[in-house]
């Protein structure tokens, strides 16, 4: 799971695919999906912190799993990688390490928001 090179916050190829998928009939699709993702991620982050505080590994694992799937769909590569690591830690690792991962995840989600905002302004 350890990737030596840092992955991109947002995979531009995935974003391009989403724009193409939206096409002329749904030009706002990519924006809509990113908004859905950010909204959901914010809620999952709260759930993750709660689960961490209570030491509920199962809940931690599920939330990380779902967030990994949605981040992969929008090309949020860093979030995706952190979620995969978190899922692993929640299952087999130390809860203390998981706490560290959750803070890293919060920063990665914020980075998605910023990066996408910048991309839109640039467009």
């Amino acid at each position, binding site marked *: 799971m350890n990737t030596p090179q840092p992955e991109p916050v947002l995979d531009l190829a995935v974003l391009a695919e989403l724009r193409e998928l939206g096409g002329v009939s749904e030009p706002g699709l990519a924006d809509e*999906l990113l908004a859905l993702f950010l909204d959901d991620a914010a809620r999952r982050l709260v759930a993750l912190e709660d689960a961490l505080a209570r030491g509920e590994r199962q809940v931690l694992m*599920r939330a990380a799993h*779902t967030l990994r*799937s949605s981040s992969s769909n929008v090309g949020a590569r860093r979030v995706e990688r952190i979620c995969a690591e978190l899922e692993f830690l929640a299952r087999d690792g130390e809860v203390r390490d998981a706490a560290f991962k959750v803070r890293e995840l919060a920063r990665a989600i914020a980075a998605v928001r910023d990066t996408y905002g910048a991309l839109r302004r640039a467009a």
Partner: protein
Amino acid sequence: MSGIERTNRPIEELKLAGNLPSPTGVGLAILELTRGEDYSMGDVTRIIQTDPALTGRILRIANSAASSPAQPITSVSQAAMRLGVRSVRNVALGFSLVSGNRSGECRRFDYERYWAHSLAVAVAAAALAEEVRGAAPTDAFTCGLLCEIGSLALASIHPERYEEVLERAQGQGAGALLLLEQEVLDIDHVQLGCALLRDWGLPESFAQAVAVLEQRELEGLAADTDKLARILRAAHGLAASILDSDAELPSANELNLDRLRLAALRQRCRADWLEWGRTLQIPSKFRASETSALPRSELALAIPTSEASSTNTAARRGLRVLVVDDDPVALRLIALHLGRAGHEVIKATTGREALLAALEHAPQMVITDWMMPDMDGLELCRTLRSTEECRGMYLIVLTGRDRETLAVDAFDSGADEYFLKPYDAKILLARVRAGQRTIELREQVESDRRIQAQQVADMSVLNRKLEAAAMTDVLTKLPNRRFAMRRLEEDLSIALANNTALSVVMIDIDCFKQVNDEHGHGMGDLVLRETSNVLRSIVRREDTVCRLGGEEFLVICPGANLEQAAATAERMRRAVAHHVIGYGYGRAVTISAGVAQREEGADTVDDLLRVADRRVYVAKAAGRDQVCSEDPPRSHARSA
């Protein structure tokens, strides 16, 4: 031809079609248990107690019927002691019919209004029974609740044909509806209702009271049946004004209650009806304009509900797909792909939400994520597979590449298909198309099964027609000798079992040979037909006129004693004598009649026919055109 259905053969055939209203659950258990005579109070109360809702309803009716409210009834066995175990059994059966037959396929038949109306009749019948002390209120309640069960049965067995009947009968009287039912289905709702009540082992008096509900005159019923019949009719009159408080009170009633009493009763019944409606979850939103003042059978006529026939929309068109995923992005994307492929998409984000949506929207396919909080995808599959309404849905489980999610678990949980995320949209849609073929195949099988059931039902119509033909005299359209003997046998055994009266009238057209000789056989046939019509128009609904052969007729009068049957015979004699036959004949014929009743020493079919026959000859010997209902002194009898 009234009541060729009295043998329960049509009922047996209709049962094969599979859609007869029938008691369910506890009601069915009670029915099975009490088929014979030897059941105990303990048996019945034990079964009822397994159903708390039913127990509550029984206690409720027991307490409303109890004359001393100081001692409330608190157990089913107390209720059975107070009301009698039979009454408790019967009312339990009635309730189980209400809970099991709340909707159906016949679009012109308003099931909710049907039950609301039946409940109003039930409540009114119970109140009237208490008021006039003519029948046990609980029995009146049950009888009222089921008095139109025949209409429900017709709508259930032949939804499409009955739709046609209701459509054609709209705006016409109750009589027209009965005729149309006979014409299209060869059985009417009164006959079928009576047959069902008998099949369920309800008292014969119930069936008889229902049989005379639509007739103008009540005659020749046993005293207790007569009372129940009057109560039932009056209850029917009240029902419309119970369903709507603005409706007018019925103007006349057979129970001689004054209007003030009637108004008070109506008030009480309405309150009762609303209470019962809440208990049984039957809506109470009907207006007079929608219910009565029309002939009673019009009540069941409904505005067609615009429920789209959604069953066959799958073919060559999009599917209705429920997509379940707690990841909103994935959900949005799958919905997008499916929507673009022409499918209708319903979305849910949790397993529980999905379950509700599945019940509400009846999707043909469910695509669910595996890993979800609250209820995961596999649990959802298992639950759907075990739910009657959802059993046939096509289930696809989606999952990530995890080591603990194994395809075999998905299939064990009832999934039809399983595949991994991230998925390729093209492959997803290809799998959905493959699923659609399976769904169409399943639906084809299901529709074949339905058509088959319909064919069985149609076959039973055909069989009834054939049987009717074999039992009908071609010339006069009256039931023939075969039918007469069978019917007399049945009526006689019912009369013996219930110790009720039964009489027969044997009729012979006077000097018929002369008509044939002087005017030819064509004129003879005409005289037979005309005379048959006159006889048929005179008798009560429960009487049966049959042509035994030649110029000989037999009238079977269940419930009538010698005097009543003789009065019927006399009316027939007079009517025939006054009916001038036209077509070149230009005068009336006369008949001679012999009347006999079931009594000690004369209680077999042969006895009855022999006595009646003997009396016909007495009438002939005494100069024809008369009715004889007693044997002359012995010496005369011999010379006749």
